[in-house]
């Protein structure tokens, strides 16, 4: 055993020594734990860019506490085991006070319980919309910059029942925390309003066919099919569902709405008029500045309508909180996050970050208005965000309105 132990120790040292160059004295590190590979890789890589942009803009505005803000990226592989390990590396090796991520609720919860909370490191989830994050006993170390699914379910129900006048609906949802949560919340809200949900059908990723699911959802001829999933299988289900001709209307949630590939792959002609919801702010100044900055830094506009700016906001909020705390430690950031994120104080958007830092230095309060919304954290560390309603028009996702 002793031999084993020392062998492992040597191994650990090798690992450690290989991680050089991240913690020079004049920098402050923030970690990101985003899914670079695995099921949600399609989001993770773009969220990573959004955080890079945020760090870039913070540094242009003079940095945090007079130091350069540096991001350390780690891959969760969309998998809790790897996510926890990645977070452990960040917390122990890179000693970050704040982690931005993860994307999926499963990984976020595991990281919060196993790493962030016990190590007193602030974790700001960017796309974990499960209501479970609200109720987790987290000693207030877990925040998120995206709204809970509980809200989106209501928005979808309101859109379907009140605005479009559908009285019957069925859902097909991806069988994970995201899909099931949305479906449950939609069902509840839709029936409260007087509508009837005929069937709620879960689908598993990557099955040989989805005909059975579609057939089940079509029973009773619902007026609208709610497809609550991700493009990877959702596209296929949409195509199949359209092929059967069993449904007149389709609606999608933020897993698919606004994502360009969806229209391309399913076919614009079939989707014309389809609604989608997406957590989105009204056109804030921050959003414009973020889009502009994205074009400048990477040469192309943001690739997703949702969650990228949430990741972006998370980094900036962390930076502001550190500035206000005067030190880069987890407990200090936790104490100051709400203060910089919400009222009272002067509203600051990302184009005026420099001024924001100055105000903090002067001891004045600020209220950050992010690219993804107001970003006012409640007592659970959640934000309430408005939702954008999108519709496919002329083969493109068009935002038709924003609801609170």
């Amino acid at each position, binding site marked *: *055993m002793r031999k*084993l132990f020392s062998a*492992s*120790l040597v*191994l*650990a*040292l*090798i*690992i*450690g020594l*290989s*991680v*050089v160059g*991240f*913690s020079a004295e004049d920098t402050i590190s923030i970690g990101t734990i985003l899914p*670079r*590979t*695995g*099921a949600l890789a399609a989001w993770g*890589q773009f969220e990573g860019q959004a955080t890079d942009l945020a760090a870039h803009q913070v540094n242009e505005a003079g940095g945090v506490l007079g130091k350069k803000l540096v991001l*350390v*990226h*780690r*891959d969760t*592989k969309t*998998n*809790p*085991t*790897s996510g*926890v*390990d*990645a977070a*452990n*590396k960040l*917390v*122990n*090796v*890179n*000693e970050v006070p704040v982690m931005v991520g993860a994307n999926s*609720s*499963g990984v976020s*919860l*595991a990281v*919060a*319980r*196993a*790493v962030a*909370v*016990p*190590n007193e490191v602030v974790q700001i989830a960017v796309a974990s919309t*499960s209501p*479970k994050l609200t109720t*987790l*006993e987290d000693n207030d170390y877990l925040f998120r910059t995206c709204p809970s699914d509980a809200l989106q379910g209501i928005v979808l129900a309101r859109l379907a029942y009140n605005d479009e006048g559908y009285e019957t609906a069925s859902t097909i949802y991806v*069988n*994970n*925390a995201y899909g*099931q949560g949305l479906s449950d919340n939609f069902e509840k809200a839709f029936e409260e309003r007087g509508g009837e949900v005929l069937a709620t059908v*879960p689908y*598993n990723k990557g099955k040989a066919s989805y005909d059975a699911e579609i057939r089940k959802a079509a029973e009773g001829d619902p007026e609208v099919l709610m497809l609550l999933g991700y493009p990877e299988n959702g596209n296929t289900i949409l195509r199949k569902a359209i092929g059967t001709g069993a449904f007149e209307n389709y609606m999608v949630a933020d897993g698919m709405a606004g994502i360009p590939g969806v229209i391309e792959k399913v076919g614009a002609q079939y989707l014309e008029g389809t609604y989608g919801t997406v957590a989105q702010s009204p056109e804030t100044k921050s959003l414009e500045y973020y889009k502009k900055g994205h074009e400048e830094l990477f040469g192309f506009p943001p690739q997703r309508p949702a969650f990228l700016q949430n990741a972006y906001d998370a980094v900036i909020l962390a930076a502001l909180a550190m500035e206000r705390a005067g030190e880069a430690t987890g407990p200090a950031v936790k104490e100051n996050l709400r203060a910089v994120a919400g009222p009272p104080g002067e509203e600051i958007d990302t184009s005026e970050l420099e001024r924001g830092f100055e105000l903090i230095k002067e001891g004045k309060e600020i209220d950050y208005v992010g690219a993804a919304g107001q970003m006012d954290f409640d007592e659970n560390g959640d934000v309430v965000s408005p939702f954008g309603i999108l519709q496919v028009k002329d083969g493109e996702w068009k935002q038709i309105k924003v609801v609170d």
Partner: protein
Amino acid sequence: MNVSGLLGYFATFAIAAGAYSIASLGLNVQFGYTGLYNFGIAAFFATGAYVEGIITGGPSMEHLGGFDLPVLVGVIAAMVVSAILAYIIGIPTLRLKGEFLGISSLGIAETIRLIITNEKWLAGGVWGLGDIPRPLGNLVGPKTYNWVYLGLVLAVVGIIYFLVQKIVKSPWGRVLKAIREDEGVAAAMGKNVYKYKMQSLILGSVIMAVGGAFYAHYVGYLSPESFRPLMGTFIIWAMLMAGGKGNNKGAILGAFVVWGVWTFTEFFVNYLPSGLASRAGYINAIFIAILFQVLIRIRPQGILGGE
């Protein structure tokens, strides 16, 4: 970066490697000593983790359990459930060619994953199972806690190593080895081959479940995602083959080495060109697969060699 930070990471690294090395020891009983092919380690690992989570977790309205019972009770329950599972899978396959156990165990792993994904009342389904306590967590502050838990895990690894070592060196283990070498001879020498294979399958699976149970406390939150074939089965095979099948020290060493390689290569993600960086996880898996192919070609006996 400083030494204490590195050591801090080392603690968490070693906890994960420790949990995996328990599973690797279990596989060693089945494959290393008896020659049984279990391609469904994830099933037993997941069973252990979930049962532990249900038994020791805080009360919950959303799924079965949250009985808030002591860790030991959870571990024992995990062992019992996985033993039953192993028994069920053993009945149709252990009298037949070895491949059938392999294929069937692969099937049971997928089925277990379907159950924990679909049955919300049982294990939270896709919501996962949260609120798994940290054993001995109230004794020390959070900063030193990892070391305490590491100690606990290593102690368990030690105990299991000792117990397994004891039993494979006993006449019982001798029968297993005889079965591994030549079933016909073992039968001709009066050994009930089916019974011993079943005992070995169950013992190994029970050990895997213990590994799963300690993994559950390590992550604190369980979701079906953790028990995909790569992280639940392949990696453990690679560990045993790297360390040396039929060698319990090898099983443990292999777990640390492979887990080390796995996490170590991840540090390089930041140096990769951004196009490839987003695919690094896949390249990592390819690397594990190639490592395995090279191992069975050039050093089938593993680092330490078998008995």
